[in-house]
């Protein structure tokens, strides 16, 4: 039983990753130099997807970012985890703002039908707007702050994009509170504040944390776009620069890093979420 779990959790996923690497290797292209009979060299691209660097080449070319993950050689030449760290810091700030704004709005939506009627349409309209569309507005809004404009614009974009899952899940959670719990509050004559903190908030926590997890996922999605547009140093910016430099191996490294970090964030939040599951 235990070994079956080990196989399910470790061996099979590792095998799947290996298989994917193999497929990647097989379809990737390479550039081969050949000396022609007349003495000149000719570069030939081979492979199924000619411009896709293979796993071995990716490793070779991006080694320096991985083996010294926290190195700082130049502004645009730093270890991959150092770039990631810059991004994580701003994501954390924006995400925090999203939670602080989103949770109360969610409660208002869940508690007040009037508030829902007033603002639900607006929320539904703003929700699908892409971070790429918010970003310029964010920068313009904070243009008066001078040097900090990019930073504040980025925070604005992350917060406003990441807020919606928290808002909606909290609202759903508040509406889903069983009437029984509210009856308990009424019979005990709890005051409004007491009802909020002793009944409503704990009863909504599981939903709130689902929202928080989804919000974190979005915040992490948004950061790449934000960094590309603002030129703020971080993993997304690194990816964009390397694209402009034609270094496709670094793009792949960045994609993998963004994916792994996103996965880890989601796992961490899901552990936290489980901790708050009641009944």
């Amino acid at each position: 039983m235990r070994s079956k779990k080990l196989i399910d959790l470790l061996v099979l996923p590792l095998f799947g990753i290996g298989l994917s690497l193999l497929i990647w290797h097989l379809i990737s292209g390479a550039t081969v130099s050949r000396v022609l009979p007349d003495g000149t060299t000719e570069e030939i691209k081979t492979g199924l997807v000619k411009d896709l660097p293979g796993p071995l080449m990716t490793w070779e070319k991006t080694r320096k970012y991985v083996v010294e993950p926290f190195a700082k050689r130049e502004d645009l030449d730093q270890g991959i985890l150092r770039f990631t760290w810059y991004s994580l810091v701003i994501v954390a700030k924006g995400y925090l703002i999203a939670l602080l704004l989103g949770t109360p709005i969610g409660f208002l939506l869940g508690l007040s039908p009037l508030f829902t009627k007033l603002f639900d349409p607006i929320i539904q309209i703003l929700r699908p707007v892409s971070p790429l569309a918010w970003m310029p507005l964010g920068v313009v809004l904070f243009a008066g702050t001078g040097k900090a404009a990019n930073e504040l614009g980025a925070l604005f974009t992350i917060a406003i994009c990441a807020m919606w899952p928290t808002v909606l899940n909290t609202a759903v959670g508040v509406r889903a509170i069983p009437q029984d719990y509210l009856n308990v509050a009424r019979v005990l004559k709890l005051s409004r504040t007491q009802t909020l903190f002793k009944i409503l908030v704990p009863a909504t926590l599981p939903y709130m944390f689902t929202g928080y997890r989804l919000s974190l996922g979005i915040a992490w999605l948004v950061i790449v776009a934000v960094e590309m547009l603002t030129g703020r140093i971080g993993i997304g910016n690194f990816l964009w620069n390397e694209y402009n430099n034609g270094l496709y191996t670094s793009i792949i490294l960045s994609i993998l890093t963004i994916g792994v970090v996103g996965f880890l964030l989601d796992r961490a939040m899901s552990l936290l979420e489980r901790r708050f599951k009641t009944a």
Partner: protein
Amino acid sequence: MSFLELKGVTKSFGSNVVLRDINLSIARGEVAAIVGYSGAGKTTLINLIAGLTRPDTGTVSMNGKIITEPGPDRGLVFQNYSLLPWLTVRENIELAIQAVFPAWTADQRAASVEKHIRMVGLGHAAHRRPVELSGGMRQRVSLARTLAIDPEVLLLDEPLGALDALTRATLQDEISRITQESGKTVLLITNDPDEAIYLADRIIPLSAGPGATLGPDFPVTLARPRDRRAMNHDPDFKRLRNQIVNWLLGPGGRVVQSVSKRLILPDLLPEDLDEPRTLFGTSRQPRRRSEQKREVVEIR
């Protein structure tokens, strides 16, 4: 003077009349039981007394004061326990005490919590959460929570409805003991006549809905403490039980309503089994009389 009184109470939800013409008065210290069908409006009745809903007409009053909102003077034990799942047994009870007696010191609160946990025999489970408890244990917690706020009247809304027979019997014993010890006024709602007779001083049947109303009083004269096994052979018990059941099943308990409806009967003829099967199943189907074109009857 009666302590708890309902006068001419009716309640409907939309066009659906649930309760009509309810008159009930309960004396202080009395244990009254309302027995009725499931879905007849028993919970609505108790919600009216608890103040969770307001009557359409008539008044519900306690101590001469009309009840307009819920309050801790009426301790409601919910049918589905209504414990807060994120709190332990101790915390659930503590929350109630804290809310109702805000002036108490921490020591007083803790003492009261422990006293009521012990009263329902849950000392060993005080740190557990409701999900970790059986139905019977949850109902004990719910009872302890209600007793802890020291209500003037205890409203028990089918407290044992969701429990198995054995747990039910044990808890009936405990409710009996606790209510006798505390001397509180109790209104028990149940669908089990035996339970009502075992626990109550007086039984009032509630007729079937829609438009349920209360029947005549049936005083329970059996001496306390009552012994479940002896009771089953007691002729008084049998007679009372029969009276209550008969009332509930008889014309008083059932609301007879006549409905006239225009019925359209299906116009079908039996299918013809002689018709041959085809490759794709059968073409024979029940036919409508109107679709019949011609029928040849051969007479020999």
